[in-house]
C-alpha cells in the first residue's frame, strides 16, 4: 500500500495551489456579489493547460486520470476559490468522460481539442423537473429525421448555460420500457444552439458567479454525428462520468472545508478575548481539530475511489461513500469556521460566509446524501430496495 503522491502529482498540487492562490479571496467575493463569470480565473487555467487534464494527449490534452483532476480541484477549493472557482474548471474534468470513452473517432477529433484548450465551454443537460434522480423518466425526446435528430423538452439545474458553447445532452430516443427503463436513452454532444434553446436562470443560495438554469429546448436539430457512442445506450455511457463526478465534487467539498478551516484557525490564533487567543479554549479548538480529522478521512476516501477508477476497477461504493463523507466533512468544517468567527463569521468580508453557503450544495448535488445511503443499503449491504 502506498499513500504517497508521485513526484509529478506533488508538483501538480503545488503549482495549482500557487496559481489558484494568485486569485485572492476578495476576487471571489466580488464575483459572488456581481454574479459575474470568473473568466480571468478560467483563462489562467486554460493557458496553463489545466483544462485538458483528462483529455488524451492525441486530442491535445494531457491524458491524466481522475486522481490528478481531483488534486487540481482540491487545490482550487483549498485556495479559497470555492465552488465558484471549481465549477467552471470541473466541466472539463468529468463531462467529457463519455466522449473520451465512447465517442467515435470523428466526434473526438471535432470536439476534444476545443475542450482541452477551453474554447469549448460545456454545459451538462441531464436532470429534468419531472424526473429528478430517476433518470429513466426523463421526458426530453429526440426524434430521428433523416440524418439528424430533432429534440424537444426541458432540463433543469443546467449549469453554465449562460456561457456554454456546447452541451452534453441526454434524451429519450425510444419509449420507456418498464422491463429495461434505462434503455432507449441517447447521449449527444452538440453545439448549444441559442436559436432553439431558451435559458431561464435560477436565483440560488450560493455560487452566484456560475449560473444554474432551466432550459427549454424547442426543435433543436442535432446531426447524427453528434451522438455519443450508441443510440439507445446513452445512460450507460453516462455512467462513466457519474463516478468521477462524485469523486471530484467530493474532493471539492473537502477543499472548501480546508479553506474555511484555515481561516478559522488563523482567526482563533489572533482573536483575543478575555486576554487570550480564543483558540486556547477547547470549546473552540476541539471542533476545529475534529473538522480537520474528518476532512482528512474524507479526502482519503476520495483519493481511494479515484485510484480505483484510474486502475479500471469498480468504484461505485467508494465514489458514493467519498461524496457522502466529503459533503458532511466540508459542511461541518465551514459551519465550525463560521462559529469560530462569531458574529464576524456572518459578515461577507471574512469570507467563510460565502464558503458556508457554497458548500451546502454538495449535500444535494450531484446526488443527495439520502440517495447515496440508498445505494449503499441496496448495492453494498444487499438490503431490499425501498423505492
Amino acid at each position, binding site marked *: 500500500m502506498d499513500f504517497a503522491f508521485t*513526484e509529478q502529482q*506533488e*508538483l*501538480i498540487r503545488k*503549482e495549482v495551489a500557487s496559481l489558484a492562490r494568485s486569485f485572492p479571496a476578495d476576487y471571489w467575493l466580488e464575483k459572488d456579489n456581481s454574479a459575474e463569470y470568473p473568466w480571468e480565473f478560467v483563462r489562467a487555467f486554460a493557458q*496553463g493547460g489545466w483544462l485538458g487534464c483528462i483529455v488524451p494527449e492525441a486530442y491535445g490534452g*494531457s491524458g491524466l486520470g481522475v486522481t490528478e483532476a481531483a488534486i487540481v480541484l482540491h487545490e482550487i477549493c483549498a485556495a479559497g476559490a470555492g465552488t465558484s472557482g471549481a465549477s467552471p474548471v470541473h466541466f472539463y474534468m468529468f463531462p467529457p468522460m463519455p466522449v473520451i470513452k465512447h465517442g467515435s473517432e470523428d466526434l473526438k477529433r471535432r470536439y476534444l481539442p476545443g475542450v482541452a484548450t477551453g474554447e469549448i465551454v460545456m454545459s451538462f443537460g441531464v436532470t429534468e423537473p419531472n424526473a429528478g434522480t430517476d433518470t429513466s423518466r426523463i421526458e426530453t425526446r429526440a426524434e430521428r429525421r433523416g440524418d439528424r435528430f430533432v429534440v424537444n423538452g426541458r432540463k433543469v439545474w443546467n449549469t453554465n448555460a449562460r456561457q456554454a458553447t456546447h452541451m452534453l445532452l441526454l434524451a429519450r430516443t425510444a419509449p420507456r420500457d418498464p422491463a429495461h427503463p434505462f434503455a432507449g436513452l441517447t447521449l449527444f454532444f452538440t453545439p448549444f444552439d441559442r436559436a432553439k434553446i431558451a435559458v431561464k436562470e435560477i436565483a440560488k443560495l450560493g455560487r452566484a458567479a456560475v449560473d444554474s438554469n432551466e432550459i427549454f429546448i424547442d426543435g433543436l436539430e442535432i446531426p447524427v454525428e453528434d451522438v455519443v457512442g450508441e443510440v439507445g445506450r446513452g445512460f450507460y455511457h453516462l455512467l462513466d462520468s457519474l463516478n468521477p463526478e462524485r469523486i471530484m465534487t467530493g474532493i471539492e467539498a473537502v477543499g472548501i472545508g480546508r479553506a474555511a478551516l484555515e481561516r478559522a484557525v488563523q482567526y482563533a490564533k489572533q482573536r483575543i478575548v478575555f486576554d487570550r487567543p480564543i483558540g486556547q479554549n477547547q470549546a473552540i479548538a476541539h471542533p476545529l481539530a475534529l473538522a480537520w480529522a474528518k476532512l482528512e478521512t474524507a479526502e482519503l476516501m476520495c483519493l481511494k475511489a479515484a485510484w480505483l477508477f484510474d486502475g479500471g476497477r469498480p468504484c461505485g461504493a467508494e465514489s458514493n461513500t467519498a461524496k457522502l463523507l466529503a459533503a458532511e466533512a466540508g459542511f461541518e468544517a465551514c459551519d465550525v469556521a463560521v462559529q469560530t468567527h462569531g458574529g464576524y463569521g456572518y459578515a461577507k468580508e471574512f469570507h467563510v460566509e460565502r464558503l458556508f453557503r457554497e458548500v451546502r450544495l454538495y449535500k444535494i448535488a450531484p446526488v443527495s446524501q439520502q440517495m447515496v445511503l440508498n445505494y449503499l443499503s441496496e448495492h453494498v449491504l444487499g438490503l431490499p430496495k425501498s423505492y
Partner: protein
Amino acid sequence: MKILVAIKQVPDTATQMKLGADGKTIDPTGITWIVSPYDEFAVEEALRIKEKRGQGEVVAVSLGPDRVKEALRSCLAMGCDRAIHLNDPAWGAADTLMTARALAAVVKQEAPQLVLCGRQAIDDDMGALPAQLGELLGWPSAYWIMEEAVDADGKTVRVARQVEGGLEVFDLPLPAIVTAQKGLNEPRYPTLKGIMGAKKKELKDVKAADVGLAAEAPQLSITALEALPPRPPGRIIQGDLPTAVKELVRSLREDAKAI
C-alpha cells in the same frame, strides 16, 4: 546561447520560523519549500532570452540536500532544459564561499555565456554569492538589474539597475553574471504540459569530487540564532474623537517620543 541559472530552495514566505533545539539552526518541521522568488525572476529572464533568440539552452543549478530536487523540478516545469543538483554531504554546512566555489566549478565545466541568479535568497538574505562567484571566475557582474538585453551576436549584455531616482545602464562583455531584482519580469506559472515534460528532462546529481573539489571546512559558521522579541501589544485609545486625538498626540510625544 547557454545560460546557467543558480537557484536556491528556501522556506515559503508564509512559513513561521521555529528555532531548532541547538539554537543554531532552523527547525525544518512543517516548512513548505519554494524556489526563492528573486531566483524565479532569473529563471523567467533566462527563458525569455532563449525564446527571443529562438535557440539556446537554460540549465538550472542548485546546491542542497535531496529536497532541493523538488525546486529544480519546478524550474524544469517552467521550461529549463536540464538541471544540475550539487548534492553531497561534504556541502552539508556550506557557507556562501563554499557554495560559490562549487558553482564556479560547475560554470567552468558547463561554460555558459551568462549566469543569472536572484539578487539574494529570501531565507538568510546574505546576497554574497553572486559577487563571490564573479570574483572566483574573474567575470564581470551586475546586480539588482531591472532590464537586460543581450546583443544579437551574443557578445555583450546591456543591463539597467535600479538606483535612486532612475536607472544605471551598463554594457558587460559576455560571459557575465547578472542578478535579478523584482520588476525585471513577471515569472510564468508552469503549465500542465510543462510539469509532465519535466519528469523526462535530465536532473543530474553532482558530488564534490565530480567537479574536482576536495572537502573543506566552511569559513563562516553560525554561533547562535535568536528569535525576534515578541511585539509589544498595541493600545487602543478610548473616548470621543477630540479627547482621543489629544491623548494620541501626547502619547506619541511623551511616551513614544516619536514626534
